[in-house]
């Protein structure tokens, strides 16, 4: 209680210990993922329920929204490759689960869904989970990748 800065030391670790490329790319990935989910769902909504395989593909590809979706994919792909080059897949993938929260928030804002207690509890659980993972080492594969001659990972380097 003496110093408010000491109470949540790990929160600042994400900014200070993880390279800027990584956390900045994570934010961009989460934002594009949210946009993709919303645009994709609205594109699929235009397809008749009875449509077959080809008809579904044709209907979606004929929508202008499809090109927005494509460009979002390109942006996400670029930042995802940059992220993968610098961090563990098992580190960054769970953190992008934050997009679940932003998608839920968008459905509240755009479709006026209720904010129930259960939903808030779920969001808090996701936040704690992401926070736990963000406090593990962001790259456990680096030594092998950096130089093949490096000593194999010591037990002391394990996450946790």
């Amino acid at each position: 209680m003496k110093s408010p800065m000491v109470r949540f030391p790990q929160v600042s670790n994400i900014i200070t210990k993880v390279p800027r490329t990584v956390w900045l790319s994570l934010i961009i990935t989460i934002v594009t993922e949210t946009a993709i989910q919303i645009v994709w769902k609205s594109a699929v909504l235009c397809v008749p329920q009875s449509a077959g395989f080809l008809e579904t593909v044709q209907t979606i590809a004929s929508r202008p929204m499809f090109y927005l979706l494509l460009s979002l994919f390109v942006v996400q792909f670029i930042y995802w490759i940059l992220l993968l080059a610098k961090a563990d897949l098992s580190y960054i993938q769970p953190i992008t689960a934050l997009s679940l929260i932003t998608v839920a928030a968008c459905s509240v804002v755009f479709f006026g869904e209720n904010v129930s207690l259960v939903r808030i509890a779920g969001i808090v659980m996701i936040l704690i989970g992401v926070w736990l993972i963000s406090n593990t080492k962001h790259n456990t594969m680096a030594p092998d990748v950096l130089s093949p001659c490096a000593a194999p990972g010591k037990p002391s380097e394990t996450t946790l």
Partner: protein
Amino acid sequence: MTERLPGLLLVLVSVITEGLGHVAFKRAADFGHNSPTAIAVLRTALKQYKWVGSGVACFVAEGLCWSFALKTLDVSLAYPIGSLELVVIMVLSRVILKEQVGLRRWVGITLIIGGTILVGLS
């Protein structure tokens, strides 16, 4: 329930294919780990045609499965089931990519999946 079964199966298939696609991209991206600039990282990674190609193939297959699944399932249901993706990713990262998936990451994804179910079903 039975009318949802094809949709649920499609979600499962797309979850596993997406996991494999991520592994392929990670393999390609690792080649760019030491590249100095973002452009150089992309250039080196994208030259791994074998990995990038199989990754793209996985994601196209996943996208088709997901599109058809969304036709019969609400996002609010498909998304929570899709969060099983995290389990697939953890297992593949551990087994294929040899990443150190510690207890914290397992507890973390358990909380995320639990939270996703609560958000989706509420």
